[in-house]
């Protein structure tokens, strides 16, 4: 008789009714709520609408696109039960190095005067490769030497920042080609972000890579005994996170039409925040890209909203800090609730 129970209800589940409601729905409602609060405050304090201003919304989403790109990688790392503190520094490093190969011959002080006016693909590929290398180093340290991810990526965070300062002795890299600047122009960063998000949403949801990522985060021992090559897989995940940080670096330089060694400072924290606000659990095994996208937009709406209301930048940071802590508290609470019925 139990047999029938399982069979009947499993039949329903195929059509989707068995799957629990996606948690992202909650986060989506929170996003709506925050936006509406700013809307109301906007009418009260600024006498105008917050939302009905396409320009403001465009700027808002442009501002967080780079964070979003990194965050897609960071989310995957966190799902495996790890953390990536290096993404912001890798943005700075790849921005500098990529920009060095993107300078125009009309610019007098090019780093490599003989390597100017290269097709955009060269600096872009360089940025991506440097990003992947940084990720591979992170991954190798974590997977093969068993250093905690926190420490390994902290090391990379400091080193990569050092490299970006040392690269030009602190000088900005400017005079970039039109072709290169194109990928940072107009809404290109947003397009890159959404394409990246879509690709990895599909990867996590429908591929073996995704299933194994969750399995490792849920119980690394059991994952290993089930035949998953945990080391190789972690290497992949961190390499992807590095790749996306590299991409973010390229986009950042192109958008600013210059690269500076201080680019991407603290981005790693915003990226982690976006993932956690979006429902990714710091204890691993739980998280979705859709949530991270919404989390990213929440960060954007808050920054944009506070600026719109002319809230002091210092207060903004304090409030952002509190929201991140609140998101983690919610995560911890959720974990507890799971155990108690």
């Amino acid at each position, binding site marked *: 008789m139990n047999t029938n129970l399982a069979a009947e209800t499993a039949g329903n*589940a195929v059509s989707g009714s068995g799957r*629990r409601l996606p948690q992202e729905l909650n986060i989506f409602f929170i996003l709506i709520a925050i936006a509406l609060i700013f809307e109301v405050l906007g009418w009260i304090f600024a006498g105008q609408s917050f939302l009905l201003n396409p320009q403001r919304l465009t700027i808002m989403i442009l501002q967080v696109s780079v964070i979003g790109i990194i965050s897609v990688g960071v989310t995957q790392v966190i799902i495996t039960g790890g953390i990536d503190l290096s993404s912001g520094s890798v943005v700075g490093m790849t921005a500098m190095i990529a920009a060095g190969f993107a300078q125009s011959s009309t610019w007098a002080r090019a780093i490599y005067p003989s390597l100017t006016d290269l097709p955009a693909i060269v600096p872009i590929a360089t940025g991506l490769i440097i990003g992947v290398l940084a990720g591979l180093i992170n991954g190798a340290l974590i997977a093969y030497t068993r250093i905690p991810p926190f420490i390994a990526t902290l090391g990379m965070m400091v080193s990569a920042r050092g490299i970006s300062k040392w690269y030009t002795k602190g000088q900005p890299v400017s005079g970039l080609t039109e072709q290169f600047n194109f990928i940072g122009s107009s809404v290109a960063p947003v397009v890159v972000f959404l394409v990246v998000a879509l690709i990895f949403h599909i990867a996590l949801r429908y591929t073996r890579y995704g*299933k194994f990522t*969750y399995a490792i985060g849920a119980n690394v*021992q059991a994952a290993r005994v*089930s035949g*998953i090559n945990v080391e190789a897989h972690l290497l992949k995940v961190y390499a992807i996170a590095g790749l996306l940080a590299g991409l973010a670096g390229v986009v950042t330089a192109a958008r600013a039409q210059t690269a500076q060694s201080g680019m991407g400072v603290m981005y790693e924290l915003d990226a982690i925040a976006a993932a956690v606000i979006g429902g990714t659990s710091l204890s691993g095994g739980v998280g979705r890209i859709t949530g991270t996208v919404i989390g990213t937009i929440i960060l954007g709406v808050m920054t944009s909203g506070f600026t719109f209301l002319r809230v002091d930048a210092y207060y903004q940071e304090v409030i952002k800090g509190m929201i991140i802590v609140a998101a983690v508290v919610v995560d911890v609470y959720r974990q507890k609730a*799971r155990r108690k019925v």
Partner: protein
Amino acid sequence: MTTISPATMAAVRASKAIPNAEYLLSAEGVRKEFPGVVALDDVSFRLRRGTVHALMGENGAGKSTLMKILAGIYHPDEGTIKLKGVDVRLQSPLDALENGIAMIHQELNLMPFMTVAENIWIRREPKNRFGFVDHSEMRRMTAKLFERLKIKIDPEIEVRHLSVASRQMVEIAKAVSYESDVLIMDEPTSALTETEVGHLFEIIGDLRSHGIGIVYITHKMNELFEIADEFSVFRDGKYIGTHSSTDVTRDDIIKMMVGREITQMFPKEVVPIGDTVLSVKNLTLNDVFYDISFDVRAGEILGVAGLVGSGRSNVAETLFGVTPASSGSIEINGKPIRIDSPNTAIRNRMAFLTEDRKDTGCLLILDILENMQVAVLQDQFVKGGFVKEKQAYAACEEMSRKLRVKTPNLYERIENLSGGNQQKVLIGRWLLTNPRILILDEPTRGIDVGAKAEIHRFVTELARDGVAVIMISSELPEVLGMSDRIMVMHEGRVTGFLDRAEATQIKIMELAAR
């Protein structure tokens, strides 16, 4: 969560005034629902002072759920609980403990990186006059407790170094240390060998003679007759009845539990034995086991018996590449193969059901589907990196139906399943991979009688298809009933092989205890 309800405290004090209430602990009309499942429906239960009361029922019948209610972990949707005749509402496990109800859970819950002593006295550590933990006092207390219970485990060792059986003994000692009036044991013997089971029964006998009431959940029928005074049966969340264990037979109980008769306990078939599939020579893992050599042939079931600490599970782990060997060789179908990881083992068509389902088995926060398909995705149901969801789902669905996993659907988190049903999912995980060499470590741990016969039938079918099976089990009847040959181990060495025809419990015990 750690507050103690005033009502409960009052109840305890009041209880002193009614020393001879008929029942130590009772529950009436208890109902508990989880999303999609009625785990308990109008259930009653009464525990007398100084008795051992067994709970019987199929996997998912609601035994653990009822006990978790009595231990303050879940709150009932309906019904009352009386402690020594007084109504109580237990708010938390701590509340239950303060009221003299201690529970040993079905899954092990010790902290791996803490010592045995620290685990036992957690949150009750003796303090010195500076308010720090008094380690020497704690050591003394543990030594005293272990002496009384005749447990021989080093209190200073970190729990992660202990075998599953030793951990279970620590859990038992911990529960006893609360000096509670009621002690609930949820399948305490599922990971113990006969020797420790005997030891545990001595402990239980001693506690009973001191007037403590013991609730004892088990799927092992012989234990019921050996230790229980009375027993209650549950089926599908409903209370079926309570009887004295002297006036029933084993078949009566099975009929009460499953509502039908089980014809054959060990459906062993004699199948033609083929060529040697796995050949192990002088396998050694330094300080753990030495010089293990054996062959397993297609269609053969090799039983492995031995006491706790004999290294049975370690050999299995090494065969599967979890902890690669220090020396020795492994040949599969005549070809020498270095198995340095489970991944390599799976690529050589091996499968390994581990002993500890919580640590090395379940992906607890993921659903049944993900848990079942994780191993088979290594080389099936995947095209160009994408999982063929429909096929994978259909295969898992069919497997869960065959194994009778009791669940509303495959999207239920595995941690919400009853222990036995979790075990079935893990068995399904490995059966899906179509192995040629199947290593089973305590395969029917926590599995009810009906399902046990079912799983044995599966294993028999696999053997008929030419799979070489290695089956480690602490249940001698299972080893004797299913194996073609039995390998017995003692302290990391093989002490002998017994053929099916000559093997008896006594011969195994002689080899195991030498």
